[in-house]
């Protein structure tokens, strides 16, 4: 007892252990960024000005992924990049794994292990340090980021090897991992914000990686601008936190929150809502989700890493990090839950009618992120993080698989000298499975996982979210309060229903995507069919690893009801971080559901996914599909879904259009051209010129007129003196 007390106030048990090297985990990718950045710049330095005869279109069949038309890499810089890029990630992951091993010893991480590297903003009462915080949550995120990041780096070696910007690509990717690690390891909101902005920058750079096509550059800008709206919320939340609690580090904020009753503070609700605005921007929730589908303009491994597995989960991470804050505001928690549920359902329905293979996955990501927000909104933090983890496995796999498919499509088109066909449109695919059995098998595993087929990873995580929602409808903060005149428990049951429907729709659109892509008759041009081949091992290897993870990822948190040991690993692991907040949200104590109820809930979820898969097999006729060129425009509800509910168009008309026209007419033509250019700049010049003109007119050379002016002047002066 005495020893424990001394321990609690004294030296952290991890001091002196390998965990002190945590700074090296983000530093390695930063080093990779510097080296690869040099590799990207040096050839240009040695080669001199760019070759004007190079046609940027030559490397691109059309918009989208098209890095495959040049020959193999020939220069040494590329070979060095191939070594450095993935190597720093591998080292980073190894180090993270070793540190993870050190933290597994019992009792060492009862308190977060905070390492301070220097003062950043020592301002009066508020002092912000450059500090990393190692706890169970940041450890898990670090492992996910470096682990999946490494696999995606390896995949990229194959996918990007023919691209002219190979070194630049890896430099950006390394930089992204650095910032993402700063984001999850930061011990205070401002440090998180550094990582938050950094990943936003890398996301922008990588979305518009092929910037010589305007559509890609536009997509990057859109992502950047939409995220600015969210970042505004994050900033305001930080200002409010500093003003009201005098602290911005997590420990300080939690200390300031001690003793506050849930729902008693309007300030906390405001802070949480602004914070959630930031999360909605980064994690693509309503109404700020619009950038994510467009972000598919980037290279496909980027979509896998940034826009599926890691960066877009930063919002979920932030809500979990601020769990106690959200737990003290039932209103904010309710908003998080409702927005998540609505986004999940809304995006899933759009996914039903998308033809671009990456767009299906993009809307699926938005939808699954909605699931995670439902979980963290109701205070089921473990369920949210669990789904975040399994989603990182199977969605990274799906995107990499899609990359493999696009890669094969490009090669087939190229080999058959077919030009102008969309290599990402599923209507142009069909029957690809015969040529690429590994990709098909691995993607089916991921599809079964995301659809929630029993004992795949997604089944456990999705089931835990749905069960938690049902549980919270009986007791807990949200159930006790009423919102908009409707009791919270009714809302929660509604969210549960939306979750079930979303699960069903998810199963439908994923099965649809798999069938249209890999099965049925081939819709490729006849000459291209025989050229569909599996990608090299550097690309299929990561697929297999992720495939295994997608299948077995569920062991992280098996519920008690299945009587499989070890159960609830993740929940026990995360308990020191999220336990307190979860308990507040649960209303003080968690009453476990009866086993029969839980079996019923599981059966419901399984039934939803089974119905979805069967529906997709029964309703969709792969044989009747025609290529993109021959397809008629979609009509009615199908057209509405294919056009994503016209959200982009509405935003264009209602917001962008008026803003552009206001800026052009008033700010540009009126203020800039009229007032600043016209009145101030040209006006000054005009006044000087007119005075010069008048002065020169007076100098006539006629002495008589000078005399007249002289006399008149004297008379005026005289008059002034006398009167």
């Amino acid at each position, binding site marked *: 007892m005495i020893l424990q007390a001394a321990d609690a106030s004294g030296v952290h048990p991890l001091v002196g252990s390998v965990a002190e090297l945590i700074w090296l985990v983000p530093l390695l990718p930063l080093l990779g960024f510097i080296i690869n950045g040099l590799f990207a710049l040096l050839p240009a330095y040695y080669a001199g000005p760019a070759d004007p005869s190079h046609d940027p279109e030559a490397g691109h069949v059309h918009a989208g992924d098209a890095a495959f038309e040049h020959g193999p890499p020939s220069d040494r810089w590329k070979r060095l990049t191939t070594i450095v890029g993935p190597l720093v990630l591998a080292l980073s992951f190894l180090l993270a794994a070793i540190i993870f091993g050190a933290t597994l010893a019992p009792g060492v991480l009862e308190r977060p292990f905070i390492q301070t590297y220097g003062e950043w903003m020592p301002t009066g009462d508020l002092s912000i340090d450059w500090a990393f915080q190692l706890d169970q949550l940041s450890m898990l995120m670090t492992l996910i980021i470096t682990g999946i990041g490494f696999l995606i780096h390896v995949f990229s070696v194959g996918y990007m090897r023919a691209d002219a910007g190979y070194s630049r690509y890896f430099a950006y990717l390394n930089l992204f991992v650095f910032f993402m690690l700063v984001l999850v390891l930061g011990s205070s909101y401002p440090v998180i914000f550094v990582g938050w902005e950094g990943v936003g920058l890398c996301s922008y750079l990588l979305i518009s990686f092929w910037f010589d096509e305007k559509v890609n550059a536009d997509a990057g800008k859109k992502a950047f601008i939409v995220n600015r709206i969210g970042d505004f919320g994050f900033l305001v939340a930080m200002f409010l936190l500093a003003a009201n609690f005098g602290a911005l580090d997590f420990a300080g904020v939690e200390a300031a929150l001690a003793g506050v009753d849930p729902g008693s503070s309007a300030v906390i609700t405001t802070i949480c809502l602004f914070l959630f605005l930031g999360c909605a921007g980064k994690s693509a929730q309503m109404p700020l989700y619009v950038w994510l589908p467009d972000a598919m303009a980037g290279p496909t491994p980027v979509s896998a890493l940034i826009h599926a597995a890691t960066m877009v989960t930063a919002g979920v991470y932030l809500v979990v990090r601020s769990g106690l804050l959200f737990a003290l505001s039932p209103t904010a928690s309710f908003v998080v839950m409702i927005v998540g549920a609505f986004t999940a359902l809304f995006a899933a329905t759009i996914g039903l009618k998308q033809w671009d293979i990456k767009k299906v996955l993009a809307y699926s990501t938005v939808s699954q992120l909605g699931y995670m927000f439902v979980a963290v909104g109701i205070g089921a933090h473990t369920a949210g993080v669990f789904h975040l983890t399994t989603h990182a496995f199977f969605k990274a796999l799906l995107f990499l698989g899609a990359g493999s498919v696009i890669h094969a499509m490009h090669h087939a088109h190229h080999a058959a000298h077919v030009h102008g066909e969309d290599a990402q449109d599923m209507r142009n695919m069909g029957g690809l499975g015969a040529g690429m059995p590994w990709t098909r098998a691995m993607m089916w595993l991921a599809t079964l996982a995301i659809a929630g087929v029993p004992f795949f990873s997604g089944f456990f995580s999705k089931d835990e979210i749905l069960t938690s929602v049902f549980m919270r409808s009986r007791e807990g903060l949200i159930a006790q309060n009423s919102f908009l005149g409707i009791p919270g428990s009714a809302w929660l049951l509604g969210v549960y229903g939306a979750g079930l429907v979303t699960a069903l729709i998810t199963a439908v659109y994923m099965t649809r995507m798999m069938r249209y892509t890999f099965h049925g008759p081939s819709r490729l041009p006849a000459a291209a069919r025989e050229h569909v081949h599996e990608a090299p091992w550097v690309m299929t290897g990561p697929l297999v690893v992720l495939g295994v993870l997608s299948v077995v990822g569920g062991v992280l948190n098996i519920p008690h009801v299945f009587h499989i040991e070890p159960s609830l690993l993740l929940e026990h692991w995360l308990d020191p971080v999220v336990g307190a907040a979860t308990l507040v949200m649960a209303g003080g104590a968690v009453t476990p559901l009866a086993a029969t109820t839980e079996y019923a809930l599981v059966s419901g979820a399984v039934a939803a996914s089974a119905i979805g898969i069967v529906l997709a097999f029964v309703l969709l006729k792969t044989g009747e599909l025609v290529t993109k060129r021959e397809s008629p425009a979609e009509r009615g509800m199908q057209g509405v879904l294919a056009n994503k509910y016209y959200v982009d168009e509405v935003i264009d008309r209602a917001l962008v259009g008026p803003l552009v026209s206001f800026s052009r007419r008033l700010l540009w033509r009126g203020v800039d051209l009229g007032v600043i250019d016209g009145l101030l700049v040209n006006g000054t010049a005009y006044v000087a010129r007119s005075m010069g003109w008048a002065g*020169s007119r007076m*100098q*006539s*050379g*006629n*002495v*008589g007129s000078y*005399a*007249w002016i002289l*006399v008149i002047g004297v008379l005026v002066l005289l008059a002034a003196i006398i009167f």
Partner: protein
Amino acid sequence: MIAEALFFSAILFTIGVVGVLTRRNALMIFMSVELMLNAVNLSFVALSRLHGGAEGQVFVIFVMTVAAAEAAVGLAIVISVFRHFKTVDLANVNLLKG
């Protein structure tokens, strides 16, 4: 007595000014300037007498000296202008026009 002298001086000065402004012949302008100078001289002596001092009368001597020098220089200029332009009409002498 002083009022009449100053009044006469003012009329003389005004005639001189109007002459300078309206005449175009250089000689006439020259004479008008002399008229103005003498109008000033008149008020100098009148005021000198009024105050009982000698400074005004000394000034008049100065002015007459300067006017004599001016007349010499001015007439020389008029002669050279006439030699160059074949006229003393100042409206035609405007080579320095800006």
